[in-house]
Structure formats: C-alpha cells, structure tokens
C-alpha cells in the first residue's frame, strides 16, 4: 500500500529535475556566488582586526540587530563578520527560492491541470508531491555543500571547515524548512498565488518576529525559523543544534503535507473559497475595474505587510534611543551630523528598505499585464472594444497608485510605532516626506517594466534583477565601500538621504520626467507588437 502511494517517485523526481534544469542551477550559482565573494571582499576591505572592530562597533546597536540579527561582535573575524552581516539576509532569499520552486511543482502544476494526467498513469497518489520534495531537498543539500566547501576553499584563516559547513547547512536548512511550509500551504490553498502569498507571509513574519525579539528577548527568537539561522553562530561557537531543529521541523511539515494531500481531492484545498457573485458589479465592468479586482487580495496583503514592516522598524527606536543615551563614545563614533538625533541617522537606511519593498507590489501590479497575456486572457479583452492603450493604462494606473499607497503605509507604520516608543516623539512630516522622496525612483522602475512589456515582453521579469541590484548596492553599498557611481546606476541612488541630507527638487523632477518618457515609449511599443501567449 505505502509502496503504491509512492510508486514512480524516482521517475518523477528526475522529470522535475529536467523541467528545472536551468532554474535550479541558476539559483544555486547565484546564491553561492554572492555568498562566496563576500568574505573575499571583507578580507580586502577590512583586512586588519582594528578595521573590523571599528565596523563591529557601528554594528553594536539595536537597529542593526533588528536588521541583520545578533552576531559575535567581541571577536569580529572575517568569518564572524560574514555570518553577522550576510547569513540572515541570504537565508531569507533561500527561503524565497524554496517557496517559488516548491509552489511550481505542487499547487501550480495541480491548478493548471497537469497533475491530473500524472495521476492517471501508474504513479502513486503521493508521488508527484514527494518527487518535488525530493528535488527541493536535493537542491537545499547541494546548496549547503557547495557553500560549505566553497567558503572553506577560500582559505581564510578564521573560516574553518566546521564553521563553513555549518554556514552552508544553515542556508540549506532554511531552504528545507520553507519547502515544508510551502508544501503545507500548497495543500491548504486552492491556487498557486495563495500558496506563494501565504508562504511569503510566513517568511516575512518570521523575519519581523525575529527582528523584534532579537532586540527585546533573544530566547523568544527561538520561535522563528529565521531566528535559528543566527543561533547557529557559525564561525564562532558553531552550534549545530538549530540545524537539527530545522531538519526535524522539515520532517514534520513534509509528513503533514503528505497527510493533507492524501485526504483531499485533487484540485481542492482546505481553506474555504466562498462562491463568487453571479453578476459583475458595476465597477468590475471596465478594464480598470477588472485589473484591480484581479489583484485585490494581493494588494491588501501587501498593504498590511508593508505597514507591519514599517511599524516593526519604528518599534526599535525606543531601544535605540536608550541604548545611545549617555553613551558618549558611540555618539562620537557615529560621526554625528549637527542637529540630528541618532534615530534620524538610521531612518534613511530603513526607508531605502521600505521603498524597495514597496516597489515589489507596484512592479507586480504592472507585470501582471504580461502574466495575463501569457495566460492568453488579454485576447478576450482586446477582442472586445478595449484598446491596448486603455488596457495598459489600467494596469499602469493601478501600479502607480499601488506604489503610492504602499510607500505611504510603510511610512505611516514607521512613524506611528516610532512616535509611540520615542520620548520626544517623531515628526510625521519628516518621515512621510523622506519616504515619499523615493516615489519618483519607483516610477522609473515601473516605467522600465512598461518599456519591457511594450518591446521585450519575454524579458519582463528581468526588471526584478534591477530591483535586486538596487537593493544590494544601496543597502550594502556602505559596507562594501562601493564607488558612488555604482549606486547611481539605480534610480534609488539619486534620492537624498533625508532627513540627514536635504531633498532637492531637481533629481526628483528629472526622475519623474524619465519615468514618464519610459512609460510613453512602452505604450508605443505595446500598441505596435503582437499579443502572444
């Protein structure tokens, strides 16, 4: 019986591996490459212990702990520094990889009706699920080994074999845990969007929960899977306990997914999907209405997420103030800008993260146009009396409005919680203005998507790489001491770091003009090209 449930799992694993023969190596290469160049850069940039200790001191505050997690700042070797600065962030990206890869071969294949065919073959009921779990487990293990041995091969003194393997295992383990989380949501939700959305929500909550508890109560961080990542303390105390925990939790989640899969009907979920309306509401009967209806749930989820992100960051301002209060040495060291508080100095960094995070739903909103095209749904609209300009205009309007709302909500979140926890309160105008300064940069990103959709529809997703680039150079630019122009290649690099720097009119104006120009070009392209499936 058990054998029959799993029949042909091996065949199907090889099959899935073939389907992802480019995707998986690309993820593995990207993650390993970025992980392995970091210690090389650190060794070159922060060669002496003195330089590293100076860096450690700028890191020793609650705001940094919330962002990157705790680390061993007393013995800040290249290894310890890599773990502290990079491990958590990389783990979050590995989690995202798992979520996307697992959804692809569980709920997405099922929703698109491909599993039905497989189930009619002499393959077991649970074979396809387990085949995709085997593939993601293999990917995670490969990642752990490549990174583990890769880091060790650098031959950096503080990076011994045990620590390197643990570093890799922490990343691979995170991949496994989120594979389990996604596999369970793939059973609960009836569609791929829901599966991805809920799994990412878990990832985000795990990150934020850890941010807050790492600052306030480190023991509570054990409740977050991302908390386990930093608890490994790779290259310092090399604690393998969290890895064991990750494997155990993964095992439990895999079993749960199998159980849920076994007791449900194909193409059904457990979360209630209430029957919809039988008539289209008045507001649905236009391209704009339809486009916004299709994205409603996603927009609401992102709005909540960004507010929480802002609020979580704001909530540490109180700790930050009291941490620096009366600590003259730190105040000296952080090169105080005249007239600005310590909180003011952290705000720009937080706002960069918030504005880039707000760009994600805005780009998703415009890229949805391409998604609908790929599914062959645009033809039906264009076949009626809807012009291409109208159609693209509807998606563009939603994207722009979406970005504006997301940016505002993150600012409001940051302000409202910061204002509550700080003794002297926080100026709303300052926070809101500093955040909104990024809106023109966001418009440029939307504009780039419009151009891609207009001229190079198959390349639409490449805009995400530009977002990732912007994030890396702006967020990590200071750490890696990049030249100025590296940051200026991103529209976000042209925005002044308010409140420390003054926001001037010119760059915002130029960016806005650029964005509008890109959008016009994109519209021209979209009106000229073939609509393709």
């Amino acid at each position, binding site marked *: 019986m058990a054998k*029959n449930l799993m029949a042909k799992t091996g065949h199907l694993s090889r*099959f899935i591996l073939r389907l992802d023969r480019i995707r998986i190596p690309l993820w593995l290469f990207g993650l390993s490459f970025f992980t392995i160049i970091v210690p090389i850069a650190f060794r070159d940039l922060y060669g002496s212990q003195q330089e590293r200790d100076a860096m450690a001191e700028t890191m020793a505050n609650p705001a940094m702990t919330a962002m990157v997690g705790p680390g061993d700042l007393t013995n800040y070797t290249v290894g310890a520094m890599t773990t502290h600065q990079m491990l958590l962030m990389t783990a979050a990206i590995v989690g995202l990889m798992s979520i996307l890869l697992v959804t692809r071969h569980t709920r997405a294949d099922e929703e698109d009706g491909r599993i039905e065919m*497989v*189930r009619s*073959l002499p393959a077991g009921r649970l074979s396809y699920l387990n085949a995709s779990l085997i593939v993601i487990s293999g990917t995670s293990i490969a990642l752990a080994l490549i990174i583990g041995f890769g880091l060790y091969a650098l031959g950096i003194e503080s990076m011994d074999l045990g620590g390197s393997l643990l570093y890799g295992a922490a990343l691979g383990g995170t991949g496994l845990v989120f594979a389990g989380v996604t596999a369970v949501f793939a059973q609960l939700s009836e569609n791929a969007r829901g599966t991805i959305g809920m799994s990412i929500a878990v990832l985000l909550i795990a990150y934020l929960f850890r941010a807050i508890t790492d600052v306030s109560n480190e023991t509570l961080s054990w409740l977050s899977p991302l908390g386990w990542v930093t608890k490994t303390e790779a290259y310092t105390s090399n604690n393998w306990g969290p890895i064991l925990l990750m494997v155990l939790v993964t095992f439990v989640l895999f079993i749960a997914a199998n159980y849920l899969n076994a007791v449900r*009907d*194909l193409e059904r979920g457990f979360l209630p999907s209430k029957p919809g309306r039988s008539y289209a509401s008045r507001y649905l009967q236009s391209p704009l209405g339809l486009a916004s209806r299709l994205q409603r749930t996603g927009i609401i989820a992102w709005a909540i997420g960004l507010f929480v992100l802002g609020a979580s960051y704001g909530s540490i301002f109180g700790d930050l103030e009291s941490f620096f209060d009366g600590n003259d040495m730190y105040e000296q060291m952080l090169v105080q800008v005249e007239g600005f508080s310590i909180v003011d100095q952290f705000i720009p960094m937080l706002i960069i993260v918030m504005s880039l995070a707000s760009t994600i739903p805005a780009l998703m909103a415009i890229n949805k146009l391409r998604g609908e095209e790929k599914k062959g749904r645009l033809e039906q609209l264009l076949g009626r009396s809807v012009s291409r300009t109208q159609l693209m205009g509807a998606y563009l309007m939603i994207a722009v409005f979406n970005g504006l709302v997301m940016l505002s909500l993150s600012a409001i979140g940051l302000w409202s919680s910061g204002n509550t926890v700080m003794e002297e309160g926080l100026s709303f105008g300052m926070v809101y203005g500093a955040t909104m300064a990024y809106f023109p940069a966001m418009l440029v990103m939307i504009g780039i998507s419009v151009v891609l959709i207009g001229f190079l529809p198959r390349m639409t997703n490449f805009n995400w790489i530009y977002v990732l680039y912007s994030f890396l150079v702006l967020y990590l630019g200071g750490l890696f001491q990049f030249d100025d122009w590296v940051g200026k290649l991103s529209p976000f690099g042209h925005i002044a770091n308010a409140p420390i720097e003054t926001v001037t009119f010119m760059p915002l104006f130029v960016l806005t003009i650029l964005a509008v120009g890109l959008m016009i070009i994109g519209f021209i392209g979209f009106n000229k090209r073939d609509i393709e499936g």
Partner: protein
Amino acid sequence: MSMVKITNLTKKFGKFTALDRVNLEVNSGEIFGFIGPNGAGKSTTIRVLLGILKATDGSVKIFEKDAWDDAVEIHKRVAYVPGDVNLWPNLTGGEVIDLFVKLRGTNNKSRREELINRFDLDPTKKCRTYSKGNRQKVALIAAFSSDADLYILDEPTSGLDPLMEQVFQECVMDIKKQGKSVLLSSHILSEVEKLCDKVAIIREGSIIETGTLNELRHLTRTQILVETKQKITSLEKVKGVHEVEGTDQGLLFQVDTNELDNVMKHISSFGILKLESAPPTLETLFMRHYEGKATSVDSGVGGAN
C-alpha cells in the same frame, strides 16, 4: 468479463452532490458511450474511475480491482485522455508523449511514429505553442501508442478538426478490432452513434438512460416535415405528436417512433404534397432529456398556400 463496474457511486463536493447513485458497466471488448450536457458529471465519474477523486459512497471497480486502492496496478493497463489537456509549457510534444508512455511502462516506438504522422503533429514544438487541438493530439498519441486494455477518453475530440476527428475514429476502431474496451465521454452524438455499442446518458449527476443504441432508439422520435393540400388541423391532439412548428417549407413536428403508423394515417387525409422524415437520432433523444420536459409549440398553421 466486466472491465468497469460502478455500483451506486455517489460523489459530493462539500454539500454539492455531483454524482448521485450512478451505476455503469463496461464489458470486455465494448465501446461505451457516455453522454450528457455540460456539468452533468461525466468528468467527475471518470476522475473517480481513475482514482483521482475519492468516491463518497458506492463501489468503483476496474478489472475487478478497487479504483482507489489499486490505482497504480490498474493504471498500468489503462490509457486516459482528459477533456482539458494541460501540458508543461517548456517541454516539446514529443517529450511529453515519451514521458507518458514511459511512465505507463509499455513502449511502442513504431506506433508512436505512425500516430504522429497520422495526427499530423509536430513533436518538436514546445507545448506552450500548441493549440487546444494539438495538446489533445499529444494526449491521444500517448494513449493510443501504449498497450492498454481499457481506454478512457473524456471528450477527446472537442478541439479537433473534422479531418482529425476521422483519424481519431479510425484509431478507436483499430482498438476495438484488437478486442480492447473504450469508455468514451462525448457530446458529439454523431461520433457516439458511429463508434459505440452501448450508451449511458447522464444528467445532473444521475444516469437517466442506458442500453444499446437499438434499445435506445425505441425511445426516440422521428422528425417529420410535411406539406399538405389542406391545412392540417388538431395535429397536437394526436397521440405521440410533439413540438409542432410551422415553417416556410411546411409543418415540422416529431413523432414517437411507436406511434408513427397512427400519425401517418391522420395526415394522409389532408393530401400529402411533400414528406420528409429524418431517422431517429441520438440527438433527438438527447435533446428530449436536455430540455427536461417537452415543450409543445402552440401553432396549428400548416398546409399549402
């Protein structure tokens, strides 16, 4: 020997009853037609048969094994073509055919090539570029090139052009010659009439008729188009006459096949100028059940002008 035996199958989705005590039997060597309107429950029945859905109640057997518990064993000898064929967009048609055939465990290279030619499929194209018809061809080729004992085909020709429909029918006849069984769900009645030995009609989750085509023809009506010298009166009152309708060509109506004699006697008294009769088709039977109750049109006009 019975290949498929469904006894009192009930399937519920939550509170909604999709199938209500369905009984059905396909014997060895039979081509069994399964017809019914959209949403009647054809695909649901087939998916229960394949162990894709679990029956809420009743027993479902293929080759005298349980469709749910022994699914893997059963599927080694079953080939399936779903109504809505969905494939992996990044694979070519040829790759998908090989995958399906290989997973099923039988392999017939020469037949694969022959079928690809007959169905005129380009197996080197990526599935994302295939139309519905071409995706259906992929599933049909995969099914017909494997050595199964039972073929379950769910509206397999809904996307094929008439030429390809012809090829499909030839393939089914080939299988029949080899003594294999087919369960063919369809709403293309001419196809079912041409191919099937037995038919079951399903509507709103219940089987409403089942039997051989000849048995079912007794229940059908003959369609008559008649033009007479005098206007025909009170035709609706004659037993067995239905759906009287005045047209430019004359009076169009339907007659229960077993009342034909009486009706002809009645209209011949009005002086027949022209008489056309259409043979009883499954179509009329089908329509009768579709509509629920027969609607008689209230028009007594007719006769020559």
